[in-house]
């Protein structure tokens, strides 16, 4: 076990390091299922007693993002929000992990014997239940979660190009914009009307048409990618970066000058279709499909192209086709994410899809880790949470986040969790086989 490396020296560790290693050992035996149980219990608890607890300890409402924003704005409420976190999140999770780990291990082992999709579905259902309960407390949490999940799709899709394929593409905001506008055009045109003279369909059909709109948005983004791919894949490295950057500006200018779609004024009134379950399902779908893609033969070919294109060519990899398909695939998911984004915010304007968006997306990819699905998830979630939590700091936020990025680049040049395979079986499996659990306080002899 990886976590026992610290303990391998014969002399007992002192101080913090000893606590840290026993802390890690304590948690290393818990499978994902156990953690999900803990999170679920914490969010149930918050729904039941969160409000009254917050009231008793001097907070007006349950803190939204673990009390960080409260602590930054009104430092004298820091102890209260810490206490809240302790009672609602930390203690229940630790207790569940402590006492339900054997049960979770047994359950996980049982689930592993059933088909993989069933096990994955059970985990996802638990995750969704947690997310639903957590966001049930406050609409703001729901919005942050939705934006976070959209970011996961965007980051993953860019990681396919920048991480797995090893190119530096800057056109992602352009693809997102294409997807956002096309999907909005379909839903607004069919269900809202306004300036568009389309046939209006009854409202109850909207949730069924929405996936079609998203896929159409993705398809148009992929078509746009084809335009970049043709001239640019004759070049590599910096040249692709420049061509793709140009594409981003072309798309932005296109929408700025497209008067029927609002031009620079933006395009609003999207129906409220991107609800929490819809965004959740699309995110899970994107993780599943993108993960399968990068682990397929095509994905391996992709890595070969990245490491040495000539060698890959010599080994009968069709490099041109590989690069084309990958780029289109990434653009498709960026387009889908754009469609979701437009329906979460319910307004799009060309200015959103400029250099700032590009910097954000690239930051999430490189922060999380190249060539890694988990890295992308961590990057998107981490960046979004940090960005929301630190917003009360105003200008300081824009110093802290870039500094963090610099530190990550210095100490982990490829990102936090780079080059790691997303192996579903490994993630879902029990961490200890049910027999050898409960070895309390004995340093593992590794």
């Amino acid at each position, binding site marked *: 076990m990886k976590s026992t490396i610290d303990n391998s020296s014969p002399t007992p560790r002192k101080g913090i390091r000893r606590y840290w290693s026993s802390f890690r050992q304590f948690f290393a035996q818990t499978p994902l299922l156990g953690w999900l149980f803990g999170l679920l219990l914490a969010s149930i608890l918050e729904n039941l007693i969160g409000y009254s607890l917050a009231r008793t300890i001097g907070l007006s409402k349950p803190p939204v993002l673990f009390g960080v924003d409260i602590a930054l704005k009104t430092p004298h409420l820091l102890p209260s929000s810490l206490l809240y976190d302790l009672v609602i999140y930390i203690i229940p999770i630790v207790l569940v992990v402590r006492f339900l780990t054997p049960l979770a291990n047994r359950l996980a082992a049982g689930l592993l014997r059933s088909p993989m999709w069933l096990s994955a579905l059970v985990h996802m259902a638990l995750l969704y239940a947690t997310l639903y309960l957590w966001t049930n407390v406050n609409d703001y949490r729901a919005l942050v979660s939705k*934006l976070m999940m959209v970011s996961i799709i965007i980051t993953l899709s860019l990681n396919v190009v920048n991480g797995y394929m090893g190119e530096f593409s800057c056109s992602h905001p352009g693809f997102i914009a294409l997807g956002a506008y096309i999907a909005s055009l379909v839903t607004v045109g069919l269900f809202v009307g306004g300036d568009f003279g389309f046939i209006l369909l009854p409202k109850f059909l909207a949730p069924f048409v929405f996936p079609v709109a998203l896929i159409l948005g993705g398809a148009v983004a992929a078509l746009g990618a084809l335009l970049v791919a043709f001239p640019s894949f004759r070049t590599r490295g910096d040249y692709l970066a420049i061509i793709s950057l140009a594409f981003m500006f072309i798309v932005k200018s296109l929408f700025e*000058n497209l008067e029927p779609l609002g031009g620079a004024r933006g395009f609003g009134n999207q129906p409220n279709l991107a609800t929490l379950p819809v965004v959740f399902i699309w995110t899970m779908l994107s993780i599943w499909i993108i993960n399968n893609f990068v682990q397929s033969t095509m994905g391996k070919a992709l890595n070969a192209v990245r490491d040495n294109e000539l060698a890959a060519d010599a080994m009968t990899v069709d490099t041109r086709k590989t690069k084309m398909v990958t780029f289109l695939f990434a653009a498709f998911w960026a387009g889908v994410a754009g469609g979701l984004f437009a329906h979460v915010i319910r307004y799009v304007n060309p200015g959103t899809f400029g250099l700032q968006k590009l910097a954000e997306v690239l930051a999430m990819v490189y922060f999380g880790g190249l060539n890694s699905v988990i890295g992308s998830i961590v990057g998107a979630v981490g960046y979004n949470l940090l960005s929301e939590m630190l917003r009360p700091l105003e200008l300081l936020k824009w110093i802290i986040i870039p500094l963090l990025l610099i530190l990550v680049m210095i100490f982990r040049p490829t990102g936090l969790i780079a080059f790691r395979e997303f192996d579903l079986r490994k993630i879902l499996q029990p961490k200890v086989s049910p027999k050898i659990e409960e070895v309390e306080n004995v340093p593992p002899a590794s």
Partner: protein
Amino acid sequence: MGKTFKFTLISLIIIIAFLMSSCGQATPQTIKIGVNAPLTGDIPKVGEGSKYAAEMWLEEVNGAGGLEIGGKKYQVELVIEDNESKAESAVAANTKMITQDEVLIIIGPQASKQAVPAGQVANDNSTPMISPWSTNPNTTLDRPWVFRACFLDDFQGPAVANFVTDEFGFTKAAVLYDIASDYPKGLAEFFKSAWEGLHGAGSVVAYESFTTKDTDFSAQLTKIRESGAEFLFTPQYYNEVALIAQQAHQLGFDSPIMGSDSWGSAELVPLCGEDCYGQFFTTHYAAAGATGATKAFIDAYTEKHGYVPDDVAALTWDAFNLAKQAMQDCGTITGDIAADRTCVKDALSKVTGFEGITGTMTFTPGSGDPSKCAVIVKINDKGEFTFYKQSCP
């Protein structure tokens, strides 16, 4: 490591936390007002102006012992959120203030690209919102909960056209605007249609555009000079206005240049210099030669922050006083946030003859747009913005 140690540690933390948290309790009934401002991002100066105006207003109200509503005084608390000049952050900030902080009313966002999506959130969540500065019609369109404190572009464009026709008797106009920015573009269009309504089709002899961050306008200005236009209308921001005016004069275009409220920044004259002297623009208020409440506000602001407030600060101040007026018209604050919000919204839509520092405002039920006058300002030979004329609907 013993279990006992862990337990002691945890219980110690809990006890300390309880002891410390008990200090900040028993808050009296307060009214919370949300401010959604671009404190960072593209237009930090706008955010700063809104924040300063909000804080000054708060000081004045709380300094007088609180806001008096129905014979009872309430302390006011501001919840200031940074929208980073991004649409998604403006939406997040509004959602947070409405659901978490439970503000009674929201002032902001300033720019339309944030005010339009944020207005949707406010309207969906039945919370009144006043955008001081957003001129995009969509901000308040079909949204009974959303109001604004400024006039719209479809009023300002014709106001410019009427003023030039009456004042100079010109018949041939030229327009130069940024096609990639919504405000100049909208205003240019409204001006064009108003001008052509007055002088017939083809009277706008040059209708030239550029893109944000362009700095060389000689091609467009040469065309404008060749077209024989008698004046140039350029609804641009102060930094571009400086470049346009200087380059126009270098190219030999000496006819008047007209502007819009986006000119009204303290930075305009230092950047533009003598090239802007003698030019006119429409705006919300004129700082030089102001009287009464307007002067009091300008003096207090200048004393505190060291520069003359621009129109964003003045409009924010007015938005706050509008909110105050609505709360007082409401009569009572029950503490039931949903009922109070409804009451404030209903009161806001009935406000008539409100004396703001940027002019008298009247709302008609069914629309969040006030009916108010525009001020035409002349930049005098000392580079001050002086009141020249008023143009009323």
